[in-house]
């Protein structure tokens, strides 16, 4: 039976291996096997976030973006630049998702930077302000 490691250590091992040039698919198999063996499959999402966090310390950040329509390449570049400047990152990966319910604007979620400037959020804020 495998030794139970903390999520942070698992993430650090995973990132170090990738940065060392190990194959991602093999690493993913190892991670899956480890989680199954230690019965920690429910922690997969948390470990993923920890991996992203550790990556951010190595200058690689993943930005989650939600918009009402597809982003143009200009906006993608602008967002990448913004994240690079704010977080001093070397590489920025954008994970964009289209959700028409946000009506417009952008929601940006990245380690150390969170922005929700969607129209639906503005309306919700406005509604909360006008509630007695």
């Amino acid at each position: 039976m495998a030794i139970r490691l903390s999520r942070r250590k698992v993430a650090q091992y995973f990132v170090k291996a990738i940065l060392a040039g190990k194959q991602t698919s093999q690493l993913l198999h190892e991670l899956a096997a480890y989680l199954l063996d230690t019965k920690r499959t429910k922690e997969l999402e948390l470990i993923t976030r920890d991996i992203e966090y550790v990556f951010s310390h190595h200058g690689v950040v993943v930005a989650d973006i939600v918009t009402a329509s597809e982003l143009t390449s200009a906006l993608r570049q602008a967002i990448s630049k913004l994240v690079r400047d704010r977080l001093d990152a070397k590489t920025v990966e954008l994970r964009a998702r289209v959700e028409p319910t946000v009506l417009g604007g952008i929601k940006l979620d990245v380690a150390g930077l969170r922005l929700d400037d969607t129209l639906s959020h503005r309306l919700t804020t406005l509604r909360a302000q006008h509630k007695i």
Partner: protein
Amino acid sequence: MQRSLIQFAAESTTKGGVFGALGIDWKTLVLQIVAFIILVWLLGKYVYPWLIRSVDARQAAIEAAAQAARTAQANAEETEKKIAGLLHAAQSEARDIIATAKLEASEALADADDKARARGDQIIADAQDQIARDIAIAKQALHDDTLSLVMLATEKVLGKAVTKDIDNKVITESLKEVR
């Protein structure tokens, strides 16, 4: 007739002296005197003291009975006076009790009246408060419903009004603000 009597008297005188003339036999007289003295002595020795004692005892009993009767009468009078006093006191106490009861009943009635009035006022005040709260809740609900409708309408309008160009401008502005 007169002659016969005088002759009889003359014959008797001539037989026994004075006693004889009187027709008394002195021996019988002495015997009777002695017998009488003995009788008196016997009576004085045995009968009279017993009679006197009986009479005295009877008199004492009568006096005791009379005294007891007087005492009983006095006691009866005293008892009657006490009863009268007690009756008077009882009547007075009864009057006091009735007066107190009437006063207490009056006070209780007034108190109940006050309580009922206060309770009624409280019920009215509570009802008014409840009505005010209901109105406030209704106003709040109306406000929230209106707000929801406005938001819904705004979302509908924005969903159609926000074109891709407008959305890009909004995003650009947002990014500028973050910088």
